[in-house]
């Protein structure tokens, strides 16, 4: 199955203007937005979030848990890939073909799914470059950081779900949709990668009781760790609240910084994630603080050593 990953995540929220405030500060661009109806919030390649009022009649039904995630829109490479998804899922469930060409169905947990030929744009942007002895990534006179350098999220990276019935959930994504398991936190759940995307994960599942079903967090890729640090620092300075980070995960190697949000889930910046192919041999380890990150820091206000003894004192 030539699935690329989430093109869009749809939320039905109880405070649309708060989401606008948060998501624009996070760096997404509002499109067709109004405080009454909500709108889209897009990253540089056009992937992003759709934010609507909880009671918007155009939305698919809400989860019973109160979680605000209403639908995942998964992008596939072309029409043949879309037809393949329709043929496979049509074997045991209703798959609607909508007027815009997209498919609409549900996974085995009742999460709403939409599939479409991806609308993401190919990005032609340099990654953050690093200078090291023996390997200079930047040209002479090219700067590594400046205070107001752009920190726009580049693409929707991954979504993490609280999943009550995890074995059938994993089986659905792996056996029906062809996702690869890259790594697993034993007792928690697997990281999943669709076949048309080399990223370590576009999905991660966390085993939970039924009353928690929903979105745990979502993340966008940044251009590199400096962009991530700068973007997160701007959020803190503006009064937004960190949940976890900055740090660097072990599985996936991605830098992370999570912020709480009015979407009722954490919203993460990530950068520099590993990519894999089918030669990769999945790892397994019990979840815990040691396994979850290589290192973890906490933001502090800017400070500099100053005010010490003056020369001649």
């Amino acid at each position, binding site marked *: 199955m030539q699935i690329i990953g989430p093109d869009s995540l749809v939320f039905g929220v109880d405070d649309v203007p708060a989401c606008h405030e*948060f998501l624009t500060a996070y760096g997404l661009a509002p499109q067709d937005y109004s405080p009454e109806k909500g709108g889209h919030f897009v990253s540089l390649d056009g992937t992003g979030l759709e934010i609507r009022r909880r009671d918007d009649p155009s939305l698919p039904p809400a989860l019973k848990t109160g979680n605000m995630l209403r639908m995942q829109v998964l992008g596939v490479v072309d029409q043949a890939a879309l037809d393949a998804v329709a043929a496979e899922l049509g074997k045991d469930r209703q798959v609607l073909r909508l007027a815009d060409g997209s498919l609409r169905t549900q996974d085995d947990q009742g999460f709403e799914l939409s599939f479409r030929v991806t609308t993401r744009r190919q990005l032609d942007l340099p990654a953050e470059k690093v200078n090291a002895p023996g390997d200079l990534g930047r040209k002479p006179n090219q700067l590594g950081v400046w205070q107001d350098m752009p920190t726009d999220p580049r693409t929707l990276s991954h979504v993490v779900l609280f999943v009550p019935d995890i074995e059938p959930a994993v089986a659905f994504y792996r056996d029906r949709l062809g996702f690869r398991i890259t790594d697993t936190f034993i007792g928690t759940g697997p990281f999943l990668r669709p076949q048309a995307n080399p990223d370590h994960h576009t999905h991660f599942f966390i085993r939970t009781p039924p009353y928690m079903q929903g979105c745990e967090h979502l993340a966008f890729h940044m251009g590199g760790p400096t962009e991530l640090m700068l973007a997160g620092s701007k959020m803190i300075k503006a009064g937004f609240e960190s949940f976890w980070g900055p740090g660097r995960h072990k599985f996936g190697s991605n830098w992370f910084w999570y912020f709480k949000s009015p979407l009722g889930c*954490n919203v993460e910046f990530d950068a520099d994630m590993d990519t894999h192919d089918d030669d990769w041999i999945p790892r397994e380890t019990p979840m815990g603080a040691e396994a979850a990150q290589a290192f973890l820091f906490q933001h502090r206000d800017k400070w500099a050593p100053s005010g010490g003894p003056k020369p001649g004192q």
Partner: protein
Amino acid sequence: MTVLCRLDDLPDGGARGFEVPGLDCKVIVVRKGERVHGWRDFCPHYKGGTPMAWKRDAYLNGARTHIACHAHGAWFDIETGACVQGPCLGRRLIRVPLTIDAAGAVCMRPREERT
């Protein structure tokens, strides 16, 4: 007695968080009319507790009917602290007993200050 603020400083139906010397989390104060409710800014979802606002003082859900943890959307009853929806069902917030003195100052009771 630690004075957190004046009742008049709090918008009716709104919430604010206060740093208190000696406490390892903020104290959330929610005003309802002439009454105030105090809770530790500790979501009980994970061991040790985590702070709940998505922005400074943004503790309430959109309809302002509940205290919400904005990490995963747990909702808590403002008057009882009990979780009514989300990851903390069956758990509750830790109450911070408050009084309003004759001059209208919102104070923490001494017993809480020692913890």
